[in-house]
């Protein structure tokens, strides 16, 4: 089932190239839907009491190098797989409705991208992970570069062109990726003593790697993940890429690819380099905090709706990183939940931006206004998305942030106090985005028109997911808890003192 799910999007993409032009989109959409169904099937099958990998596939691939084709899901990746399937399902359907130019290549790229992303979440072999991680970049290079549109840019910036923006993105991420590749090979070779070992399971615990090698390999991996997120100071590619990208592709990119970085920290860095993780915990927390504050303040001052979304993602990924590096189960549980939440919110947001652009001619929020009057359904959907984006208590996003803050608060009070400032700023910029678009008087060049039923179905479905999660965020937390503890186990083993010091952590309510 896992195998089929992984390769189905690619197969559908290839098939979409072969069928008649008008069927292309629907074949791809059917593939995405099938993937989603399989992902749901895997979730239903999932045993939340187990911390380990389930549905495992393990084959020899390149035996001489110790590389194995090994896949599986655990409590962390299962929801990211599901998120991937949901995001791609929505974006592919959306694209099928509004057929892009050169649809065959477009849908092929979307299919490759989904397979690559799923692969990154499923890979249980370090090199396989790196391979999928790098493969993710390629289809997006084409999607953003070829289907992107020019953007007028911020004052004094000049026009942003798709090609140059894409190249900037590729350079940034490629530097990170190559470092990670080197790091992965180094880790495998050093740990293997003769025959390289790349199995994540065997590398876990950090016994195989000395502290000094962990230290530099940690940063090779961190570079790749931080750029992907993106984090503060390495986010230089984000503003350009976000402004030129086609929004349906950007929706999945922003929703899922940024999470691969956070997932990588939790699933790869923490268990394999536990000593380095402990050593650099505060550095990462500072980076996370800087991302949160910088992203929030920037989102607060942008006039481009795409950039509001982009910088808010920087801030949100900062929160997620903060949760991971709290190195406590509550913080990391919150981080996993927040990855899902952010993804499930950013996809409808991006799709709504498409609708706003159609009605107002661009993404400049100072040139919008008054859309709500003739579009009550659109306004309502947008309002729910906005409230989830600003992590309104009652949404699952709030529970995610609450868990993260709780984790950080118990360990490093100051970080939590400073991070909480961002919540107020988020309220402002998210609401400003909504109000500027939907409220105030309608401008003459703005058309207030209701969302179509097909688009409404897609956005409405995603909003229904947001609402359902809001009623029961425990559905994620309960399943991720065991796996999260497993990842953190390696870190606490390397720090026996830190663990015994942790007197306030009282495990409760876990019958297992």
């Amino acid at each position, binding site marked *: 089932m896992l195998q089929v799910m992984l390769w189905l999007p690619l197969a559908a993409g290839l098939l979409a190239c072969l069928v008649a032009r008008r069927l292309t989109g629907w074949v791809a959409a059917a593939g995405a839907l099938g993937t989603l169904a399989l992902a749901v099937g895997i979730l239903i099958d999932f045993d939340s009491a187990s911390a380990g990998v389930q549905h495992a596939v393990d084959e020899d691939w390149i035996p001489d190098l110790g590389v194995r084709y090994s896949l599986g899901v655990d409590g962390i990746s299962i929801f990211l797989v599901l998120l991937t399937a949901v995001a791609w399902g929505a974006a592919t359907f959306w694209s099928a409705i509004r057929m892009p130019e050169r649809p065959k290549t477009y849908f092929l790229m979307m299919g490759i991208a989904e397979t690559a992303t799923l692969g990154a979440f499923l890979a249980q072999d370090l090199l396989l992970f790196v391979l999928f991680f790098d493969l993710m970049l390629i289809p997006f290079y084409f999607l953003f570069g070829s289907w992107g549109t020019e953007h007028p840019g911020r004052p004094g910036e000049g026009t942003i062109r798709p090609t140059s923006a894409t190249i900037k993105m590729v350079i940034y991420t490629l530097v990170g990726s190559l470092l990670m590749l080197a790091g992965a090979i180094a880790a495998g070779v050093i740990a293997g003593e003769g025959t390289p070992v790349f199995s994540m399971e065997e590398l876990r615990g950090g016994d195989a790697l000395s502290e000094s090698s962990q230290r530099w390999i940690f940063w090779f991996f961190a570079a790749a993940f931080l750029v992907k997120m993106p984090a503060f100071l390495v986010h230089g590619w984000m503003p350009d890429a976000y402004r030129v990208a086609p929004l349906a592709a950007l929706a999945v990119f922003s929703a899922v690819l940024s999470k691969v970085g956070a997932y990588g920290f939790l699933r790869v860095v923490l268990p394999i380099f536990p000593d380095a993780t402990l050593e650099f915990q505060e550095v990462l927390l500072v980076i996370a905090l800087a991302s949160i504050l910088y992203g929030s303040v920037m989102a607060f001052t942008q006039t481009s709706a795409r950039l509001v979304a982009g910088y808010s993602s920087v801030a949100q990924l900062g929160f997620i990183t903060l949760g991971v590096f709290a190195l406590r189960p509550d913080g990391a549980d919150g981080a996993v939940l927040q990855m899902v939440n952010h993804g499930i919110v950013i996809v409808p947001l991006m799709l709504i931006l498409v609708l706003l652009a159609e009605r107002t001619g661009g993404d400049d929020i100072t040139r919008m206004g008054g859309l709500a009057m003739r579009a009550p359904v659109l306004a309502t959907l947008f309002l729910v998305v906005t409230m989830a984006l600003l992590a309104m208590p009652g949404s699952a996003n709030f*529970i995610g942030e609450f868990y993260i803050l709780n984790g950080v608060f118990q360990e490093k009070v100051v970080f939590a106090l400073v991070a*909480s400032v961002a919540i*107020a700023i988020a309220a*402002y910029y998210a*609401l400003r985005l909504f109000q500027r678009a939907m409220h105030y008087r309608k401008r003459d060049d703005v058309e207030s028109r209701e969302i179509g039923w097909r688009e409404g179905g897609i956005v409405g479905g995603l909003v229904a997911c947001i609402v359902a999660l809001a009623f029961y965020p425990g559905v994620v937390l309960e399943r991720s808890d065991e796996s999260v503890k497993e990842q953190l186990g390696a870190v606490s083993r390397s720090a026996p003192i830190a663990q015994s010091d942790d007197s306030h952590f009282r495990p409760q309510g876990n019958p297992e």
Partner: protein
Amino acid sequence: MEATEYGWLILAFPLAGSMLIALGWKLLPGRSAGWIGTLAIGLSFAASLGALFQLLDLPADERQLTHSLYDYASAGGLEIEMNILLDPLSVFMCLVVSGISTLIHLYSVSYMTSDVGFRRFFSYLNFFVFSMLLLVLAGNLVLLIVGWAFVGFASYALISYWYRRSTATEAGMKAFVINVVGDIGLVLAALFLFRELGTFDLLGIFEAAPEEFSTNEGVAVAIGLLLLVGAFAKSAQVPFHTWLPDAMEGPTPVSALIHAATMVTAGVYLIGRFYPVFEIALTAADVAAIIGLVTLLLAATIALVVTDLKRIIAYSTMSQIGYMIMGVGIGAYSAAFFHLMTHAFFKALLFMAAGSVIGAMANRQNIDLMGGFRAAMPFTCATLLIGAAALAAFPGTSGFFSKDEILAFAEHRGGFYWVFAIGGYIGALMTAFYAFRIGFRVAFGEPVPEARELEQGHIHHAEPKNPATGEKEDTDVGFPGSSHQIAEREWPMKIAMSVLAFGAIFAGLVQVPGLDAVVEHFLEGSFEDSALYGELPSDAAEWRGLGIGAIISLFGIGIAAQLYLRRPGTTARLQQQLAGLHSFLSHKWYFDELIDALIVRPALGFGRWANTTFERYVVQGLVVGAEGTAKGASALVRGAQSGYLRSYALLLLVGFAGLGLYFLVAGS
């Protein structure tokens, strides 16, 4: 049925009502959405009564019930359930909230008739009440925060209900953001409590707090102060009060709902509910009392000069909530909650009467333009005067018994607490004055043209303008509604106002010193472990307090009568003589300007700098080096683009596709 089952019903009806109206918005004809909304809240009130009777059947010391519906979000050592706490305090709050809200809904059915957003209005209104009920029924701190934030959201939605007015959208934003600041205070308090006590459960916290904390321990005070941030933001206490007067941008029934039944009383509830913490963190309790006193005086001074009818009432709310916050701060719990109840009656009444007057004035709200309505609108003017009398604590009315009970308690506690009694009486004098400033200006004097027109049976009609800016409203979209409603012509409004007027006069009789003490006895079950609850002044001392209050109230009303009835025009002269003071007060002590200079401008300035300078030179420059290198590099890349990068991409792609195929074949 069990008491807790009633508790869930209290929540279920408003939520169901809100969702029904929202989802069925296209199918509901005419006023039906309004009737559904009213019915939903009415049923919620009935369920509250059911819970009350169930609770009264239980022995007095077993009246704290909790019930969990399901495990909401538990993992990683945290336990957060979907549970409610049903005890005398929460049932008391439910009765006040749902009871008053039912009447406000009833009033709105008429008042909002011609508004295009009628259904949206009732959906929001029901959600507002649901949020408030969730807040008071929540059994753990996380759920309480959820209700707390929902209230903030609902207030946002209703304040910016007429969203085409820029003043309304901005007022909504302000209310929302300030409320989020309050939410953060609560969140941090919750995290602190969890760190110290290991639980979010309210009863768990109250049980553990006295054991874990020593009196005035630093952590406990910090928790208390963080809780106060939340309470002050919601209850519009200094310095988080600036949203409340702006919230008058919402339709008048919304103002009534925010000020009487929901929202602003939440802070009082929170402090009262967390009395075990505040009785340990005495410093925090004192801070609450001091801020309450400052707010009540500050708001009263502003209410003396503001000319917008609704804003005068808004500042009076701020001031009255100041009394309640002061009350719970000094430990006069039963008096504070008693005042909360009576205030709900007379404040809702005042807003409804004001709404009726504003209807007759074709949406103009400046009291300088009003006068002499007593012949044209006898019912409205009578209820307005009843409301004003209760607000002014006229002897015998409900406000008289409740407000003066707080002050008598302050006097009784003695020492430093005398300050609160004296400050409270000074505030009471101003309150009596401005309450009748409204009453006399609107009801008496020479009838204005609008009043004359109404005497001849025709409601004045004018081109709709935004009362705040004078901007013309765009009537094409149909809100605010095209026609105006006054109580004299609408039976639902009349019924709602009559019930409230009855309450405003007689509700005080449930707790008359020496005769009965219904509220005090009932709430006792929620304040079992309080050291201060039983510390009540003697009946004689209470009557002495009431006596002083009566004199002050009559004196204030007398001044108002002198200035507005016997010698109209005196105030204009006073204004000229004290121009500096008048401008200071009309600028609301310059709080908005202060916040703007301290917070908003620096943040915007930083953003602008970051946008233009930091992003371009530091972030972009970091990787590529100096500007020149950047150009060189991009030229290089442009050259390589067609060659290297594409072939790399293609190679990977082809290799990968091949690999995939291999496994598809090999796997099967």
